[in-house]
């Protein structure tokens, strides 16, 4: 079983996240692997463990600090790490990012075929949840998205996905792009041995030229969407906090009535 997991470097949710010139400000000390990609790494590790053979690749596309995302995947147990880092990728939209990820995946796949690509359900910064579909379309592989259960065998994979109106069972031949929700599994914690090994592990660095991707087709210039304005929202004005000493419920009701909300 050969599986590649896409992992994104995202700013720490607890930090003061911000924009600079229309793109997200990123610094190595307050970012890491997107939390939801832990579920993707976990899914890959479990499948390889169950198969008793196989390898897990972690792939990220991003600036120099994004290497932290694949290092985290190594700490969790991934066998190989790939970091696509090229200034020309900066400012890509979902489709540009998908094109770069797909080119890197093809390079791995052409050398030794992959069974699956597993992604998280959303990156907790962009939060579009569009990338997995774009990636499946770009690769022209099966699309099995929002898996809250996943079974692989017999050259095909089957998932159950929970949509608001129905639970769907979807099956498709391999190779497939699978996105997994946080309902699928409970990610493991990195163990000490792997943390130490991950520090020294080699991370393969690829540029767009290594992938045969024309720089003009990705990045801010090729992006179909451009952030034209980003501004912090003012904090809520006139905040009122009362301590309940027997009248808290009445105070709440009075507030709702005054605001026309009750």
């Amino acid at each position, binding site marked *: 079983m050969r599986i590649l997991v896409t992992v994104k470097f995202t700013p720490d949710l607890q930090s003061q996240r911000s924009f600079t010139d229309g793109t997200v400000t990123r610094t190595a000390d307050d970012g890491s692997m997107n939390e939801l990609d832990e579920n993707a790494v976990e899914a890959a590790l479990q499948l390889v463990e169950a198969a008793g053979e196989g390898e897990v690749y972690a792939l990220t596309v991003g600036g120099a600090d994004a290497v932290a995302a694949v290092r985290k995947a190594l700490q969790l147990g991934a066998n190989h790490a790939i970091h696509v880092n090229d200034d020309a990728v900066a400012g890509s939209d979902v489709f540009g990012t998908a094109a770069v990820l797909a080119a890197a995946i093809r390079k791995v796949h052409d050398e030794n075929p992959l069974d699956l690509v597993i992604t998280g359900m959303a990156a907790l910064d962009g939060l579009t949840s569009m990338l997995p579909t774009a990636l499946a379309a770009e690769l022209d592989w099966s699309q099995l998205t929002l898996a809250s259960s996943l079974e692989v065998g017999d050259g095909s994979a089957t998932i159950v996905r929970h949509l608001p109106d129905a639970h769907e069972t979807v099956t498709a031949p391999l190779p497939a792009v699978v996105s997994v929700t946080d309902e699928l599994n409970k990610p493991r914690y990195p163990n000490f041995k792997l943390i130490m090994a991950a520090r020294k592990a080699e991370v393969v660095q690829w540029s767009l030229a290594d992938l045969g991707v024309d720089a003009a087709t990705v990045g801010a210039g090729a992006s179909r969407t451009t952030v034209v304005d980003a501004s912090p929202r003012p904090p*809520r004005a006139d905040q009122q906090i009362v301590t309940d000493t027997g009248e808290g419920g009445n105070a709440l009701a009075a507030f709702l009535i005054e605001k026309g909300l009750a």
Partner: protein
Amino acid sequence: MSTADNPIAVLVELRDGAVARPTLEALTLARSLGTPVAVWLGTEPDADAVAQLGEFGAAEVRVAAIGAEARYPAKAAAAIAAATEDSSLLLVVSTFLNKEIVTRLAVTTGAGVVVDAAGVEFVDGEVEAFQTVFAATWNVRTRIAGKAIVGVRPNTTTASAAEVPGAASIVPISVQLPATRETITAVEPVAPIEGVPLAEAPVVVSGGRGTGGDYALVTELAELLGGAVGASRDATDEGWISHEHMVGQTGTTVTPALYVACGISGAVHHRGGMQASGTIVAINMDPDAPIFEICDFGVVGSLFDVLPQAIEAVKAHRAN
């Protein structure tokens, strides 16, 4: 097709065969941008649905009668592509399924996509969408070059009927559906949560770990205010309430006029799903709970004391 001047396509969202409210909001938004044309996928619409789309301004209802094939994102995308050739802007409701459909569509048409938007306007002939991001701490405005698709969040436009109703003339769309590698082998319907769907509710009252699993008071207040019941992930993980009720970044994103958080600490994952709400009220025993940082009105106290009194006071006010 194409009698409409500057057609703004709106993908109709259905619930149990009827038009869902966020579609009426999207039609209202579309009227401010051009001439709304509704795109209907699935089984043929009934007369009531067509009349309602007309009331909210739809000049046409373009029907691709593809039945249950509409569950396949790539097939739905092909049908929409066939129905919207003349339109430079498509509005859809921002749901997980629609995000997949519009991604497939954009891959074939080259459109730019913004999802989870709070609004759209034309600036110098180009589409600009606005969003709040990073748990609603930033406002972002994004321009889309060329053909555009925008996913709008429920409750971001107030739905209102058009002064002059649209003709809502039916235009059948024929489409050659692509083959897909995937096969949907089972569809098990989920019993709809009673009352207003969480994502669309004008009021959401949520309970977290602080409820200890007792949702009676939370439900009573939600019903009194005509709202839906929400929950934190800790509460759904405990099995106190079903997963469909979870509010947050990995659950449902809500933007009601009023959000009441009861016994919820306000973890960043939870805030990401509710921080763009109109008015936020928090009830929590811990004065240092992070939820108090983002609320308009907070009560430091036990929900078991505060909620019964508030419910009685609202009822007494209404009785007057």
